[in-house]
Structures are given as structure tokens and as C-alpha cells.
């Protein structure tokens, strides 16, 4: 292979890669601009829901849940509490902490009880969160 002295100007190949690069950068910048304009200036709105199926394995009951942040800001240390009421008194409780929940994000997990949640009333709620 012989060495070709390149003139100090850009080749077609370099123009092509430059166009692709500018395209990528333009997309990212415009997406950031888009989120900036559409920023919801509202605090986190957190909700927790029970998922449909409760699994029973070896006498333990797995209750899956999903927590969603439908507000604007990110919530940190989201605390989810579960209380199982049987015959009017709290028999079992559970607690779970989610590190980060940004706007529109959802996380899933499960509480585990030794009593059947279907025999009583199961309350799931978000206990607290802090702002980052």
C-alpha cells in the first residue's frame, strides 16, 4: 500500500460521518429542548396498585404491587407500606423502599405475608418520599 498524501480538506467519508454525527447531536439537543419546554413543574404524585395475581408458595403469599409517579419531579426514597387487616385488626405489615422514581416511571415489587390476604382486607399505600 502506498501512502497517499491527503490534501488538508475533508473527504466524502469524513463529510458523511460528520453529517451522521451532527444528526445524532441535533436529536439529543432537540430532545433535551423538548423535555425542557414540557417540564411539568409539579411535585411527585405517587400511587401504588395491587397487581392481579397473588401467588401462594410454601404457605407464603406473594402480593405483587406497582408504584407509579405521575407527577413532574423525581421522588427519592419512596416508602410503600402494606397492612393486612383480618377481623378488624392489623395482623401483618410490610414495608418497601424504592430509591428513585422519576416522572412517569413505575417500579414493581412484592409483599410477602404468611396469612392469606384474601381472608381480610389489604391496604397498600405510599408512606413518604423525599425530594432529591
Amino acid at each position, binding site marked *: 500500500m502506498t501512502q497517499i498524501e491527503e490534501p488538508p480538506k475533508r473527504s466524502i467519508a469524513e463529510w458523511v460521518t460528520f453529517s451522521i454525527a451532527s444528526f445524532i*447531536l441535533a436529536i439529543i439537543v432537540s430532545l433535551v429542548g423538548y*423535555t425542557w419546554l414540557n417540564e411539568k413543574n409539579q411535585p411527585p404524585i405517587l400511587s401504588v396498585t395491587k397487581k392481579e395475581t397473588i401467588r401462594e408458595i410454601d404457605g407464603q403469599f406473594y402480593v405483587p404491587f406497582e408504584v407509579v409517579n405521575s407527577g413532574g419531579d423525581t421522588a427519592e426514597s419512596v416508602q410503600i407500606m402494606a397492612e393486612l387487616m383480618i377481623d378488624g385488626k392489623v395482623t401483618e405489615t410490610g414495608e418497601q423502599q424504592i430509591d428513585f422514581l422519576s416522572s412517569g416511571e413505575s417500579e414493581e415489587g412484592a409483599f410477602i405475608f404468611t396469612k392469606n390476604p384474601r381472608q381480610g382486607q389489604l391496604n397498600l399505600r405510599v408512606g413518604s418520599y423525599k425530594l432529591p
Partner: protein
Amino acid sequence: MATKRQKDVWMSEINDIIRGACGGFLFGIPLLYTMEVWWIGSLAKPQLMMMAIAFMFIVVYLLNQTEGFRKRRYSWLALQAAMDTVEAIAIGLACSTFVLLLLRELTLETSLKESLGKIIFESVPFALGVALANQLLGDSRNSNGKGQKPDSTTSNKKDELNATFADVGGTLIGATIIAFNIAPTDEITMLAAAASPPWELAMIATSLLISYGIVFQAGFSDQQKRREQKGIFQRPSSETIMSYLVSLLASAFMLWFFQKLTFSDPWTMWLDRTLMLGLPATIGGAAGRLAI
């Protein structure tokens, strides 16, 4: 003649891009394995992201004026350095997105703002690495094959076994330098927990590809010497696989050393975590082989 020249132009351009990406991987991979950076990205406001892009542009531009990832220099032209900067940032954005996807830190469920934050904050060190690509591993090879004649007397003296030991040693040193910083952190455990077998296969493929790219494709300093070096595993494909295995062994050892793995752990855990640390280790190992 014209078509050959055209082909050369494309080849050298692709090599430039690969060199940039490899520099980025060397510099950026420890931060890609840092959860604090993911969090900062997750929490970042769009204003801050814009500032990060602007800051990244300025710093990479300044670096490109002196070094850059291309073999040829346009340092006398401010516009050319600016164009290189755009490319360096784009390489950083593309590669860090890819690794974040590979590590399952970005999924389809991740919200747009969070994804953007993670990508942008991870691509800052990556783009710096791209701009430093030539600096990181030297820049003595100016053209293919020319001026890089390996010293025949030394290569004769070295027998195959010695060369192989030198390779393994270089891989171990490089792998240790990069992976030692990552092994004791919680990220490996976290990432391994989220990885499923198809992702682990992708991880293996990526590790091999980047390792091959750094040693044989990117045109770093000693590439020509490496191609001609004698050793038991001295074909690019077998050397790449061999050094990946060495890096994996080193990773497993470091994880054990930092008590992230114990002998009572199931073998799947050893496999998951070792593969997770294998990517940075093999990148370091590739750099180590070039450096010896």
C-alpha cells in the same frame, strides 16, 4: 486507482472513528459503571443537561485543537476542530447509550428525561476519552505498515512462550488497573442481578469486539508490532479470545478478593458477576497489551 483511493479514504475514516470510540471506552468505562452518575443523570433538569452539552463541547473542542482522535491534524483551522468536536460528542453519545442499554440501565420503560440525563452525563467522560484517544495510547503509527518495522533482532530473541507470557502479563496488568476500581463497588452486584442470559451473551460479544477493536483496528501506537508479534495465540481472533478469558479470570479473582464472591456462592452468581466485570477488565487488558 480512483476506487482504491476512495476505499482508503473510507477505511481511514472508519479507523479514525474506531480509534475515537476505543479511547472513549478506556476513559469512560469506569464512570459507566458508577451508579452515582446514573442517578445524577436521572435527576438532572433539562437546563443542566444543556449546560453539560455546552461544557462538553468547549472542553472537547479545546482538546481537539491539540490532540483529537484523528491521525491528521486540522489544528490550524478552528472550524475543523469544531467539526471533530461534534463527531467526538456523537461517538460519546452513541457508545454510552449502547453500554447503558447493555447494562440494562436504559430500558424501554425508562422515561425520556431520565434516559437523556443518563446518556448525556455518561457521554461527558466518554467524549473526553474520544478527544484524548491519540494521547491515551500514543500515536507513532502514521501510515499502514510504514515506519513501524519491528526490530527483527528482538523478535528473534523472544521465543513464542516468552511473547505469550508478555501478552498475558500485559493483559493482566491492564485488566487489573481498570477493573480493580470497579470490582469492590456495588454496581457489579446490581448489574448482575438485572442481567438475563441473552444480555450476558451480548455482553460477551461486546467485550470481544471492543478488545479486538482496541488492539487490532483502532491504529493505536503498537498495532503493527502486535500483528507481527510471535506467540502461541498470535492470531488476532485467538489472541482476542485468549485475553478475554485471562481478563475474566482476573475479574473473578478480584471479585473474590473484595469478598463480592465467596466459594459458597452458586456458580451462576460467579458467572453473572464475572461477566459484568469482564467488560471493563477486557478493555483494560487490551490497553495493557498495547502498552507493553
